[in-house]
């Protein structure tokens, strides 16, 4: 099939060579469609190689990436337990995804497919190494998508950090993936109603980041503030860890964004390049805003801005060009800075590690701006045939709105249920002593 694909591409290359620099990516998209039609499913080793490593990169984002990023931000007495929660989410989530998560998210729900898949692939029954999805093995698609289902609940930890029971974290992970992540993933990527409506979400701005950020806020509010919040200093116990974790998020995000193309091609490459540009711009944006308003640039600002940029470019990665990425990055950096400082202060919720302030806010900025910067005017791929920038923006807003409403309601119900079942919050004594010793009889450091 490689051969057919190549011929189609060559033909296209011949035809379009003269006009290449002035046409939009749409031309290419057309070629892809033509190609796809001509193609019968075989595995492409190059694409497979890229998706294998992309899966590894997304896992790297979570462990050790996010684990370090979050553990560095908490106080030393909760460092190990926070890291452990991230690992536990990975473990629980993997089992859930294998058992029924994948099937419900990507199975064919038949008449109900607008809402949810089915259980035909539960326990991955009958899926063979040779089964193909696009140009890669289906098992690899399952693996790659699994990592997305893992990172999403792991991000939520930032909202309830330093005060949730460990058993509640485990339960929450299993329930939240099943009842919140899986349906939303199905709506956007599994053939559900949001994809039908034309919501653009290349790598999960809506499904992953807005969703997790909103759930984090709900959790932060429902579980209440940490003891001493607002009076005692709760600065990161190790900014070194947070910086290193942030760097791993950054590097791993290339697998997240460029991997979402599911192939090793020009669009994946562009996704990587715009990710880099948006991230750099957002890091500078946050840091400069901080420098100007508070007198000093901080490492924490720089890395928080970088994460905001990574989040914001996520839905846009395969759609926008470098210049669009630059603008998206700057805007996301500055807006998230405001959200994680002034807005948080104004409302007084204790979103401990800024799951909401960074992931939801930058996610929303990114999702909305994707509708704008996708336009060829800004060097993007171009809007779909017959769709205006305004209507695309509204479609994006629909995706954001639906995600927020569903995530708020479902997360709140899940938390309430867990509170009744096992209780959400550790005792005050445990909180003072620190979760590491109180819940796990361990200390992060024994120097």
């Amino acid at each position, binding site marked *: 099939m490689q051969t057919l694909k190549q011929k189609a591409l060559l033909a296209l290359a011949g035809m379009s060579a003269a006009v290449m620099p002035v046409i939009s990516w749409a031309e290419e998209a057309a070629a892809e469609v033509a190609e796809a039609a001509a193609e019968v499913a075989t595995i492409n080793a190059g694409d497979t190689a890229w998706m294998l490593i992309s899966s590894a990169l997304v896992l790297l984002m979570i462990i050790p990436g996010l684990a370090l990023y979050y553990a560095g931000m908490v106080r030393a007495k909760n460092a190990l337990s926070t890291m452990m929660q991230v690992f536990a989410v990975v473990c629980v989530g993997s089992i859930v995804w294998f058992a029924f998560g994948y099937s419900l998210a990507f199975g064919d729900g038949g008449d109900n497919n607008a809402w949810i898949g089915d259980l035909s692939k539960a326990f991955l029954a009958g899926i063979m190494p040779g089964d193909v999805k696009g140009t890669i093995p289906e098992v690899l698609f399952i693996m790659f998508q699994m990592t997305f289902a893992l990172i999403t609940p792991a991000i939520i930890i930032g909202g309830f950090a330093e005060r949730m029971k460990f058993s509640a974290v485990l339960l929450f992970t299993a329930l939240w993936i099943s009842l919140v992540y899986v349906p939303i993933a199905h709506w956007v990527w599994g053939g559900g109603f949001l994809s039908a409506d034309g919501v653009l979400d290349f790598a999960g701005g809506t499904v992953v980041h807005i969703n997790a950020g909103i759930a984090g806020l709900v959790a932060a509010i429902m579980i209440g503030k940490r003891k001493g919040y607002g*009076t005692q*200093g709760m600065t990161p116990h190790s900014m070194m860890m947070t910086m290193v974790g942030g760097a791993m998020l950054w590097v791993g995000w290339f697998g997240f964004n460029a991997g979402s193309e599911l192939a090793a091609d020009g669009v994946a490459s562009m996704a990587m390049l715009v990710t880099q540009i948006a991230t750099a711009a957002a890091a500078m944006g946050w840091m400069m805003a901080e420098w100007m308003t508070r007198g000093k640039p901080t490492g924490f600002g720089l890395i928080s801005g970088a994460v905001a940029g990574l989040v914001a470019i996520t839905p846009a990665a395969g759609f926008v060009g470098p210049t669009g990425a630059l603008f998206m990055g700057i805007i996301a950096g500055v807006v998230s800075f405001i959200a994680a*400082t002034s*807005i*948080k*202060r104004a409302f007084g919720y204790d979103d401990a590690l800024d799951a909401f*302030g960074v992931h939801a806010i930058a996610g929303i900025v990114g999702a909305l701006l994707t509708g704008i910067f996708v336009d060829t005017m800004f060097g993007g791929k171009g809007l779909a045939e017959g769709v205006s920038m305004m209507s695309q923006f509204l479609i994006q807003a629909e995706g954001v709105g639906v995600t927020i409403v569903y995530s708020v309601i479902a997360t709140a119900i899940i938390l309430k249920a867990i509170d009744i079942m096992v209780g959400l919050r550790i005792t005050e004594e445990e909180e003072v002593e620190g979760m590491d010793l109180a819940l796990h009889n361990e200390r992060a450091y024994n120097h």
Partner: protein
Amino acid sequence: MKLITAIVKPFKLDDIREALSSLDIHGMTVTEVKGFGRQKGHTEIYRGAEYTVEFLPKIKIEVAVSSERVDSILEAIIAAAHTGKIGDGKVFITNLDEVVRIRTGERGTIAL
């Protein structure tokens, strides 16, 4: 013999050590401590939460000296540690009943 205990700003440690050396004092013990005092830690707004940094890093220097040298050494420490800004620290003087050098078993001022 007396024990002079000075609680000072960390970056003054080298100056004090040099001042003592020039007085021919070649022994001291240093501890990292946290100080709470008139020098209030500034109010910080960290990610939307206002809080006061209450404990500031300080260095505690302990020097055992013979009683007659207390004054000159005290002067030297104060001179070296002084910046005139709040939080410069304190010096405490306590009485030592006895001093022993473990290596030799010597006691008293000869053990210093």
